[in-house]
């Protein structure tokens, strides 16, 4: 049984089909990337998973069955629309949100102390939320999503407004939670973060699944017939190379049909090229995203 199991869900608002057919599963101990262009249906999918919206069709199973009030305490959520109570102190706000997730007042205060220390917010605990910077509020929002130790964590653009130090802190936290067995669903447009963190992804476009699976498998699937080379000096001309493109110090050699990367490597070495890097070209997630979404799905 998967921790989260979404099967062929659909949802329309009036004449707008926000989600047409989306399916995926997420297990404990993995970070799952939920990707897609703006308006693809990611937020609606998340809201259906969380039972904020009722799906018109399909089924959702979270933590072994349909969503219940009790299960809300086992889920952490940081929505795209950020918000905290502005006119109260940071501590009071987070303790309240913690108790709404099933923690006792004392437990919420105890846990919060540790989290505020970890995120360098301890000195600001008595400040009103509206007095905090955007980045601090973002960190507070992350604390609100994780302080009750959820089994499922859903984060929407978790790195927005964070500086590099805090970004690293959040990435470390997500890896830590994953290692502790939490099922994490991350929605973001920052593809390099997905490449760094996610084990598997789902790319949605126009409310439908267009790419789903392990990140490495998908990248292999989209890798072209090319190699990336960095060499000292000029790269010699080789038979079987159809075209060359340069990106900074690296050169991409697009190979003709029937020519293997091994043939190319042998050819380069035979011509005395001093190689610093030689690898089969694998597209970045950014490139795959643009190719898939640009085509309108495959």
């Amino acid at each position, binding site marked *: 049984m998967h921790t989260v199991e979404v099967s062929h869900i659909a949802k*329309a*608002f*009036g*004449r*707008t089909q*926000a989600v047409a057919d989306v399916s995926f599963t997420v297990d404990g101990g993995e970070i799952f990337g939920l990707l897609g262009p703006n308006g693809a249906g990611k937020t*609606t999918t998340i*809201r259906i998973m*969380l039972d*904020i*919206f*009722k799906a*018109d069709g399909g089924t959702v199973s979270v933590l072994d069955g349909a969503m219940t*009030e009790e299960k*809300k305490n086992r*889920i952490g*959520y940081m*929505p795209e*629309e*950020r*918000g*905290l*109570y*502005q006119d*109260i102190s940071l501590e009071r706000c987070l303790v*309240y*949100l913690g*108790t*709404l*997730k099933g923690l006792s007042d004392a437990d919420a205060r105890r846990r919060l102390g540790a989290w505020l220390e970890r995120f360098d917010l301890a000195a600001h605990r008595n400040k009103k939320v509206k007095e905090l910077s955007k980045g601090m509020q973002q960190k507070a929002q992350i604390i*609100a999503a994780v302080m009750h130790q959820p089994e499922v964590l859903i984060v929407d653009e978790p790195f927005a407004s964070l500086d590099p130090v805090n970004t690293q802190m959040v990435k470390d936290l997500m890896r830590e939670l994953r290692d502790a067995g939490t099922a994490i669903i991350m929605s973001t447009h920052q593809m390099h973060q997905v490449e760094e963190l996610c084990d598997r992804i789902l790319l949605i476009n126009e409310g439908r699944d267009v790419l789903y699976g392990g990140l490495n498998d998908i990248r292999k699937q989209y890798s072209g017939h090319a190699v990336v080379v960095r060499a000292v000096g000029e790269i010699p001309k080789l038979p079987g190379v159809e075209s060359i493109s340069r990106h900074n110090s690296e050169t991409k050699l697009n190979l003709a049909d029937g020519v293997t990367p091994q043939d190319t490597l042998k050819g380069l070495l035979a011509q005395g090229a001093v190689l610093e890097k030689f690898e089969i070209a694998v597209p970045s997630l950014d490139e795959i995203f643009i190719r898939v979404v640009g085509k309108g799905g495959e």
Partner: protein
Amino acid sequence: MSKLWLVAEYEYKRQVLRKRFIWALLSVPLMVALLIGIIYLAMSLENDYTPIGYVDHSGMLADPIPAPDRSKPVEIRAYPGESEARKALDAGEIQGYYVLPADYVETNHVELVYLKRPKSNATGQFYDFMQVNWLATQPPEVAHRIAAMSDDDIIVRTPDGKREFKSEPTLGQLLPLLTGMAFLMLLGFSGGYLVQAVVEEKENRTMEIMATSASPGQLIGGKVIGLIGVTLTQVVVWSLFIAAAAFVGGRFFEVPFLQDARVDVQSFLILLAAFLPGYIMYAAFMTALGATFAEAQEAQQVSGLFILPNVVPMWLTGMIIENPNNPIAVAMTLFPLTAPTTLSLRVTFEQVPLWQAAVSVALLALSAWGAVWLAGRAFRLGMLRYGKRVDLRELFGRPKRAAGGSHV
């Protein structure tokens, strides 16, 4: 603690610990204290308990009957001659003195000698003194009738004898009316809190977190319970202050209005039965407004429209006092939006027919139920509408999938 009570506790504390709430809470007692202070000051300035004298040349007061008892009497001193009286006046022993000439019984003419005009409590008491002594010369039946005529204490009773009004009503008699006015004030105060509480999560974008932490029923129920708690706090604190003021004013300052705070139990029960569903109905309307509108300010402006019907009966007070059973008053008693304040006015001045009170309360209860349903629907439709209103057609129409994101 269940989430319903967590939300209620949060809302309660958030409002009660605000400075503006504390000011609002203290405003009524401060006003009452100020009023009592002003009344007391006015009474102090108006009264002077220095004795007043008289010189009787007519012989009418040779063997005077004392003036009727007063709670704070002014001593009336007799002087054998005007020179003695004048000496006492110059020495400040008396406020002034009356001179009854020898032909007083024929002319009814008296002279009042003073340096500074005597206060009305002294002259009033001398008037009573003279009246008693005049009536003593009359046959008893004539004296009784004249005394009754001069006493302006006219009592108006309902046919069943349960209610009566004197020319100067007491606190107890006016309490239903005052309760109605307090109800209006509470609507004004709590309406703002309710709208703010519901719309706040939309304004600060916490609604989505809240929706994944508690059910809409827990959220909306907790908010309403919390704010009813806030209102009750106001009611209890105000009632205690008013009771204390009535006690102090009646007991120590002897303000006649405050000396009788007895209320008609039936009237009070009718009001309680009407105010409870009336308040719930209003609270639900405010919740619906908060959920329907995107911004608190916008919603609060519209909330005034819901208070307005309750103010209308107050404008028509004259008409209702004159004829509490006229058709307009009866219609306003039965119409839920005007019922609470109309009832408070009518029970002050008459025994409202039981069937009217019963139908009014039943309609109020029904309306409260409908308003709660509407509030729940508005909340579900509007909770994730950031910066966008729920339109009325959608609110009252058949459940449908709404553009912009919501479900029913």
